[in-house]
């Protein structure tokens, strides 16, 4: 096995073990060996993809996925300067956040990392995001998708308000909406007119991919 393939395997193993230092080191050494940044992101994507499937099957649990996400982000810090010089092709642009009144960020953070690992350009708006904040950010970033999370039944209707604001501002055809979080269901997503729903982080990535395949915004260019 070449040094590069050994390091690629080491990077994937480090991410899957939640080893931040190991992941950053393997990513750094891969770049030193002349690997293209996309080799590094490809390895990261494969590792996170496998973890997402294991999480979906309940073979691993939130703590495992969370420390893997930490390792993923540690490696991304290393590779991002190189990516700026040779940008990778993005699957699409997503603005993501937790709705107004809700500060539970765990699910949103996991989805953010899984989406980024899968090749989306993700802008994290954080928690307690106002209704207009989602719409303004989507416009500013020319986002394809607004992704919203809520953990509380008392705040989930802010998702409906975001869809309503998109309609009232004449933007509903320009951006897709996907939703998730403990109290949110597919039926609720349908009821408020959202385009996609994710039962968990892995499912959210699949939903985002479906939305990008099913809907190509006129004039969009993700190259």
């Amino acid at each position, binding site marked *: 096995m070449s040094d590069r393939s050994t390091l690629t395997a080491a990077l994937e193993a480090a991410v899957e073990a939640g080893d931040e230092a190991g992941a950053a080191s393997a990513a750094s050494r891969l770049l030193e060996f002349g690997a293209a940044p996309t080799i590094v992101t490809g390895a990261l994507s494969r590792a996170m993809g496998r973890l997402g499937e294991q999480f979906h099957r309940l073979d691993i649990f939130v*703590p495992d996925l969370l420390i893997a996400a930490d390792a993923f982000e540690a490696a991304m810090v290393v590779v991002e300067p190189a990516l700026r010089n040779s940008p990778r092709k993005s699957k699409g642009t997503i603005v993501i956040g937790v709705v107004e009144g809700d500060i539970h960020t765990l699910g949103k953070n996991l989805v953010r990392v899984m989406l980024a690992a899968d090749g989306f350009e993700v802008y994290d708006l954080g928690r307690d995001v106002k209704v207009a904040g989602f719409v303004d950010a989507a416009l500013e970033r020319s986002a394809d998708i607004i992704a919203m999370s809520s953990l509380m039944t*008392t705040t989930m209707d802010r998702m409906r308000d975001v869809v309503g604001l998109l309609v009232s501002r004449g933007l509903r055809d320009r951006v897709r909406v996907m939703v998730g979080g403990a*109290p949110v269901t597919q039926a609720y997503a349908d009821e408020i007119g959202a385009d996609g729903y994710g039962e968990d982080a892995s499912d959210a990535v699949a939903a985002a991919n479906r939305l990008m395949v099913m809907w190509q915004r006129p004039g969009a260019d993700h190259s």
Partner: protein
Amino acid sequence: MTGLERVRRAIRFEPTDRVPVAPMLGAHAAALAGITYEAASADPAAQAHALLRAVERYRPDAIFTLMDLSAEPEALGAEVTVAADRTRIVTRHLSPEALLADDLERVILTARVPAFVDTVRRLRAALGDTVMVGALVSGPLTAAANAVGIETIARMLRRQRETLSDVLERLTKACMAVASAHLEAGAHGVMVLEPCATSGILGPDDLSSLLLARLQAVAEHIRRHDGIGLLHICGDCRASLPGLADSRFDVLSLDAPVDLSQAREVIGRSAALMGNLDVRQLLPRGEPESVYDAAAALVTDAGRVGGLILSGGCELPPETPMENVRQMLQARVI
């Protein structure tokens, strides 16, 4: 047969005239009474008034205090803020080290926790032994997660297990102190809330190695005080059911993703089951006929072998239509 007798017999798998029904009505009851969550979660007179009106309206077999997972964290020192919708949320977490203090058993009985104890006292004074009076208490893991943040706890599960174990040990004793206060105030039962022990967050191995012995200790503590012990887990906890069967609680309250008939097969007669109509969609937004059908199916299927307390999978959302609550209660007579 009183509601309390019905619940007690169901727990012992003895025949009852009908399946006991015990929806967690706290937030819904407050909304019906025109009381904000903010007021109900701080004012025992207001909370008890709302719950007693709900008892009059629906005639459940048990009534539980309002579900407020911020009460214990606030007492422990976390910052809690009233949100725009008048609910209370933790807005600044503690460091895990703050939960290693020696006096948590005293500290946890401060802030708004006494308001909930006083609510129990008022409910018991008004209801006597006709209806089971149940207090809701944050379990050790959930109190930790809400006090220091679930992400911190999730990372500690993999990186600082020893410290987390120490934190859980102290919070187990604190949880027992809160349970004791409620039982001394007249609660017939204490429901320990462990929504964070759901399978997605806490795997079966973590449950067994870090939490189960602590839950057993809390369950035995409640039993020693002649209380009914109930353990509530949110979400899909199917992977953890074998472990939960050993929790020693009288009742396992499970959420809608778990099939109660399948749960019964896994746990045998180790505990009565409580639940588990869907509170995300069915109860707040479903048609009354659908609620009745789902409740009737639970009574006939999961209730076939006894040991069933019909309820929602979690606390009912405040906006749940009254007719849907009534339909749930009517299905018990099948």
